[in-house]
């Protein structure tokens, strides 16, 4: 942190020196190419950028370098041990250093701790020296370059442009990161569990045993029950959201006055702005018991974590996703189409049903697809209100589990990172990502095409 401040200080100082130099040159040699402040920016950025890059790289590799030094200085008999033992020792060392270790460390650990600290100090001082030297050196080069012919503005602008391109690429890198992380872990998972078992298996019980010789040690990783549960809950949600959302959109775009529309549209969008954890709490503590009680009254056996309660509440959350976009696309239908229908004697409702909705249908379908993708990826409501046990059923009164619930249950809590359980979560994540990606891409392309049609 202090180092970063130091680099900034150096670059600011370098900037001011460049400013002085160019002012002096201006007095003697005439008007420089760019406004003077750009020379300061130029030299300042020269000092800042390489030093920060060096610092970041160093920080990235520091830990592993230190640990390598420690391992190399371990006594020979310890060095030849398995990597697990060495990892344990390193863990002890780190804990001792951060003060989480209460008992006195053993002699080899203490030695390792000492080595660790030495290496840390070495790395620290080398880092400080390198970074500051880099900053000074590059700032010096930049300072030397300053003269009235130097096109400082163009160079600074190019630098800014490169930075902006980099920022635009962050979004692409994020996608790449998501794809790579789920794909790599999934590949590791499929090395342990065959792909066909995962895709077509009808059993999901990821409890792997503590010891390999226990009964049922393998666990079952068939995702069909999870998909069925996800689809069941999403269908219930859509059964709530599509009619209500569409009718609300039709009313707002075709029938209501401007005032009602201005008030009701943002009010509906509040529904989408409420955190999903709130819906989850509501579904689990209010809706589910109410449904269960109601079911008992009319003689139906409703599970306390029924798909119905999660689906109903999720549907309400999704209403604005359907209504907002549908409202927009119906507004985009040209007035001439409506006028033509009125001229033929159609009532307003008939116009809506036979002209506006069919004309807007692609956009409406797009909005529904987006809503479906929302429902499939929704996590907190189902984590709190749906069940944990995978069950292959389409009975909405039963408890089912979903892909997202299983990802959360598999990953919350500590377990070894390469157990099939953890890896299975990434495989499920890949399925989820691909499903929502396909839906989104499809929906967005429909909406895009539709916009072009009426523009």
């Amino acid at each position: 942190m202090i180092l970063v401040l130091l680099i900034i200080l150096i670059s600011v100082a370098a900037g001011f020196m460049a400013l002085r130099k160019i002012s002096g040159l201006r007095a003697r040699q005439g008007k420089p190419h760019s406004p003077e402040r750009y020379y300061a920016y130029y030299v300042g950025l020269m000092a800042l950028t390489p030093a920060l890059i060096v610092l970041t790289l160093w920080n990235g590799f520091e830990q592993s370098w230190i640990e390598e030094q420690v391992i190399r200085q371990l006594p020979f008999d310890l060095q030849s041990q398995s990597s697990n033992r060495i990892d344990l020792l390193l863990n002890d060392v780190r804990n001792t250093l951060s003060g989480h270790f209460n008992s006195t460390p053993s002699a080899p650990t203490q030695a390792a701790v000492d080595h660790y600290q030495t290496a840390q100090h070495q790395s620290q001082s080398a880092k400080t020296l390198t970074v500051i030297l880099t900053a000074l050196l590059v700032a010096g080069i930049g300072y030397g370059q300053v003269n009235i012919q130097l096109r400082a503005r163009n160079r600074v602008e190019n630098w800014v442009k490169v930075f902006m391109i980099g920022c635009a690429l962050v979004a692409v890198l994020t996608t790449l990161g998501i794809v790579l992380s789920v794909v790599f872990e999934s590949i590791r998972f499929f090395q342990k569990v065959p792909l066909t078992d995962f895709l077509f298996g009808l059993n999901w019980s990821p409890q792997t045993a503590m010891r390999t010789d226990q009964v049922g040690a393998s666990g079952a990783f068939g995702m069909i029950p999870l998909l069925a549960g996800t689809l069941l809950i999403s269908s219930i949600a859509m059964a709530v959201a599509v009619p209500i959302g569409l009718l609300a959109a039709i009313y707002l775009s075709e029938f209501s006055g401007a005032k009602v529309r201005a008030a009701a549209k943002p009010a509906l969008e509040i529904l989408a702005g409420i955190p999903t954890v709130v819906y989850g709490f509501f579904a689990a503590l209010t809706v589910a018991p109410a449904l269960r009680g109601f079911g008992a009254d009319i003689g139906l056996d409703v599970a306390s974590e029924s798909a119905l309660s999660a689906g109903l509440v999720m549907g309400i959350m999704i209403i604005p996703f359907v209504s907002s976009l549908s409202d927009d696309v119906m507004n985009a239908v040209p007035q001439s189409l409506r006028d033509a229908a009125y001229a033929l004697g159609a009532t307003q409702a008939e116009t809506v049903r036979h002209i506006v909705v069919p004309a807007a249908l692609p956009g409406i379908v797009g909005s529904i697809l987006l809503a479906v993708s929302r429902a499939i990826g929704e996590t907190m409501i189902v984590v709190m209100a749906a069940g944990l046990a995978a069950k292959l059923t389409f009975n909405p009164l039963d408890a089912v589990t979903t892909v997202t619930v299983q990802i959360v249950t598999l990953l919350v809590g500590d377990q070894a990172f390469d157990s099939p359980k953890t890896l299975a979560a990434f495989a499920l994540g890949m399925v989820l990502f691909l499903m929502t990606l396909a839906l989104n891409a499809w929906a967005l392309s429909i909406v895009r095409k539709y916009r072009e049609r009426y523009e």
Partner: protein
Amino acid sequence: MSEKNLLTHQQTFAKVNASLARRRAAERRFIWLGRLAIIASLGFLLLLFGNIGSQGISAFRQTFIALNIHFDPTLLSPEGQHDLETLGKANYNKLVKQALLATFPDVTQRHEKKALYALISSGAQFQLRETLLDNPDLLGQRQTLWLAADDRVDMLIKGEIQLDEHGQSPHFNPKQLNWLQQLQARQLLEKRFNGLFFSNGDSREPELAGILGALMGSFYMLLVTLAFSFPVGVAAAIYLEEFAPVNRWTDWIEININNLAAVPSIVFGLLGLAVFLNFFDLPRSTPLVGGMVLSLMTLPTFIISSRAALKAVPPSIREAALGVGASKLQAIFHHVLPLALPGMLTGTIIGMARALGDTAPLLMIGMVAFIVDIPNGFTEPATALPVQIYLWADSPERAFVEKTSAAIMVLLLFLIAMNAVAVYLRSKLERRW
């Protein structure tokens, strides 16, 4: 066209008139369906708010018991050292017990004493310690302090635990009920404003659990998110809107951003787990990592709203700047950006509100850990407000239900405030061209 199929004017009118009543009724039904849809959604919204509010409002007041505490130096520091360190480590539980026994002198038996001690929160000793450390002069003196009662007592006073027809309850033995009645009669037991809720971190004891730790965690996380996504989002938007050539690459980037905006948030959690925690080895459960995951999640939204704000600035502004000799970058940074900034700001606030409410990705990166301490920095383990809600919602104690609802109320309050600021800024600063 044969003559037979043609209707006369009169016949047409008759047919239309005959159907008119039915068609108008259909029209009215249709309109009412639309109204009903809106009423139903808004009604649900009210139901949700009402439900949360009615459950949560009681958590802002909590049952406290007044005890006359004697800060006895012989109990606190038997060796006679009165420095802060000794006092910090002393056993304050004894003081609480002593005061309880002094209030009920007739309690002598061991199991009776135990039942009596159970009425007061096990965290009362920490309250005493803080009081004394804040004001060391109290040593050796007596003072009446209001100490938090046990959560079951709180539930009883609030009527959540009902007594049966004999005035008994499975949660209390008859003596305990008797003592509570005595306390009430002597006005030593009352509901007071629950300051602990706003000043404590999480706790296993519902009466001690507070949201300050979660609030601070959320605060640090949002700072990270803002510091990362705002500059990156604005820069990316400027590039895509103003500089990017229209070709397959930029088209692809755009599709990519739109898709990313609709990826489920839990997938971003997986990304954070695999990349930030396992690959870069950043510390688990910290606001730093949480903030980074949330920034990646909100970045597409930021970029989209910033681009819309840039698009809204009329081209004449750019052309005028270029016309008087500004470079393209100067035209944008000196003229277009200041005009687009209010729009970007509202988009940012709305994006931050979404980031504040999101839970799922934080579960993936270990922010569900049980953390009592209030975080003081970006790399200390912390939890976030929505995650705290999730954790409390999962707790079995009855008293956590009202805490959860109260935490939700606080969260919603923040969200409403943020959105209100955004709406205000939009109406105040946004220019129509």
